[in-house]
């Protein structure tokens, strides 16, 4: 089958009634699972595998892909409303989304998130369709040295995530990094800081820290403030209408982050999380008033939401064009393909053009479905904030606990969740910012491993970075982000 015929038959499958129905089922299940605590795209897809056994492979993959990007789409809801990011890709969404919700603009925040996700997702699919085979070579260009340089660049963002004291931000960052070192060290197999506890061997689960540091700490503050006269938190969801000036503000970040997010998503191992952080920081650096970030900035919400959805499309590039899983989620998708009797690999494009193009075509429809599914639901979902405070607090705590329990089925993690809730509460009491903590926790493990992989390859010589042009570029950028603020400090006094 020739190239064009392949595209045609792919679109035929995607636009057949069967294709449309299963895309719909996929994205519907995806958004709801994304909203549920603890169930990220990985478990959502794993759950779908036995169900889809015996399906036509294209239809099954269309559905599972829908679950995947649907979950990323829906994951922003709990971040914005409850400050409880359910997957790592939506942590950055909470930075500005939750402040907006607190200011009584929950409806607007959800609408912006939905629209940004739609833009990022759709742009991502277009890029995927046009450039997938070409970008395949980009995906393989990244070895450990390049990853180290990229992650290091992302980590330098800690400085820009700080409000107020830089020292406090750095301390938070170092503490987060320390927690990332808990568990079996993958390069040597040595258990570190586990104190003989089997539960700590595989390290601390991301969700435990995210929900503890953000959601539970928030809950503690709600409890303390619940009887106060000056209610800081509006029990109001506001209108979800966006004004022309809102759209104007979204335009820049949405276009830039669609592209950047997609490219980062293409890199195996990077994915939606890194894309959303880099997108957030990038826009903050570019912004004329960076101090509005973290306080409910529209740009600060648009950037990560566009980037993480664009990255999700990007993650399909190595999967579909090379048969290489780029992330935990696409690895499970790869396993699912095996069950369906399709061997994913570099020849997928030639051997199964219908599947290849069918999935891509279905993603257009899926994104449209997600938008028309989510927008009308927003007023209802946002009403969660109208639940009487004591009841809401109990429900949020329950939500966090189910979420953590559903990933490990282990009560030990629930104690850890409580511990990080208390840590997060004290950090806020004494004005230590939480974002640097979570950022360096997420990146820390990858940075350390990629650096040590690099040095093992080079037998301990740092010179290897000089032989890698891509790595050099990232490292120079990283150094610039660290150094430049020192030179600029004086002129931007407010």
């Amino acid at each position: 089958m020739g190239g064009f015929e392949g595209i045609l038959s792919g679109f035929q499958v995607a636009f057949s009634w069967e294709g449309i129905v299963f895309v719909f089922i996929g994205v519907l299940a995806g958004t709801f699972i994304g909203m549920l605590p603890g169930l990220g795209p990985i478990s959502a897809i794993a759950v779908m595998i036995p169900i889809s056994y015996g399906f036509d492979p294209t239809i099954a993959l269309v559905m599972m892909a829908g679950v995947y990007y649907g979950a990323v789409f829906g994951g922003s809801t709990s971040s914005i409303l409850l400050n409880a990011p359910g997957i790592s890709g939506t942590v950055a969404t909470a930075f500005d989304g939750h402040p907006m919700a607190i200011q009584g603009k929950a409806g607007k925040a959800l609408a912006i998130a939905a629209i940004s996700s739609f833009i990022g997702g759709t742009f991502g699919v277009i890029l995927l369709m046009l450039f997938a085979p070409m970008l395949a070579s980009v995906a393989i260009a990244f070895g450990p040295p390049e990853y180290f340089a990229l992650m290091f660049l992302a980590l330098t963002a800690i400085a820009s995530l700080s409000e107020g004291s830089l020292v406090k931000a750095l301390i938070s960052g170092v503490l987060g990094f320390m927690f990332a070192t808990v568990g079996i060290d993958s390069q040597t197999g040595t258990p570190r800081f586990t104190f003989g506890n089997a539960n700590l061997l595989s390290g601390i689960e991301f969700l435990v820290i995210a929900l503890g540091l953000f959601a539970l700490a928030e809950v503690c503050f709600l409890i303390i403030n619940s009887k106060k006269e000056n209610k800081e938190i509006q029990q109001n969801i506001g209108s979800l209408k966006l004004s022309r000036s809102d759209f104007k503000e979204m335009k820049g970040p949405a276009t830039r982050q669609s592209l950047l997010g997609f490219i980062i998503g293409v890199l195996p191992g990077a994915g939606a999380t890194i894309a959303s952080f880099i997108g957030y920081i990038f826009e903050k650096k570019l912004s004329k008033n960076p101090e509005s970030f973290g306080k409910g900035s529209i740009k600060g919400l648009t950037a990560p939401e566009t980037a993480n959805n664009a990255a999700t499309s990007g993650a399909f590039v190595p999967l579909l064009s090379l048969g290489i899983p780029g992330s935990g989620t696409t690895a499970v998708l790869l396993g699912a393909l095996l069950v369906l009797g399709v061997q994913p690999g570099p020849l997928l494009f030639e051997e199964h053009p219908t599947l290849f193009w069918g999935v891509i075509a279905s993603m257009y429809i899926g994104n449209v479905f997600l938008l028309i599914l989510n927008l009308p639901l927003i007023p209802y979902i946002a009403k969660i904030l109208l639940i009487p405070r004591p009841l809401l607090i109990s429900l949020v705590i329950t939500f966090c606990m189910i979420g953590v329990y559903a990933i490990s089925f282990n009560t030990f993690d629930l104690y850890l969740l409580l511990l990080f809730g208390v840590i997060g509460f004290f950090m806020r009491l004494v004005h230590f910012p939480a974002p640097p903590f979570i950022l360096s926790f997420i990146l820390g493990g990858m940075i350390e491993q990629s650096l040590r992989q690099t040095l093992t390859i080079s037998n301990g010589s740092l010179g290897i970075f000089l032989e890698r042009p891509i790595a050099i570029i990232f490292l120079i950028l990283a150094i610039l982000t660290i150094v430049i603020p020192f030179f600029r400090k004086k002129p931007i006094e407010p």
Partner: protein
Amino acid sequence: MLKSLNRKIAILLWIIALAYLFFSFNLPAYPYVPVDSDVLPIILGILLFLLAAILFFMKDEVVDKKKVNITQSDLFRLLSVLFLIVIYVILLEIVGFLIITILFIFFCSYVLGYQKHIVNLLTSVLVPLTFYLLFTKLLQIKLPQGVLSFF
């Protein structure tokens, strides 16, 4: 000497850094890699120690118009909720998800001063039940059944 908040925190961070360094230095060696598992933790420990030193000599920020005052009753409520969470975790796998979650939501809301008992009861039964059915029936993910093992 310890009047300033920053100094108190710095001392705490020093303790953390020293404990972390102590365990880092005691990590067993693995001879076949150029950078062993203890290198980065040692760097992190030293970094934290130095940063804490800077913090020690920093003035407290001009805190704050709205300093968080924690009243006695607030603290009591906070601690009771923490206590309820601990009870929840202890009993989750013994009593089972459904019963313990219903009890938790009800009592937690009650402790926080929610007076509409009927609404409270309805929510605390319906929400866990929905979650339970969603997870076990629809998603085939088992939650602890506890004493309701026939369900």
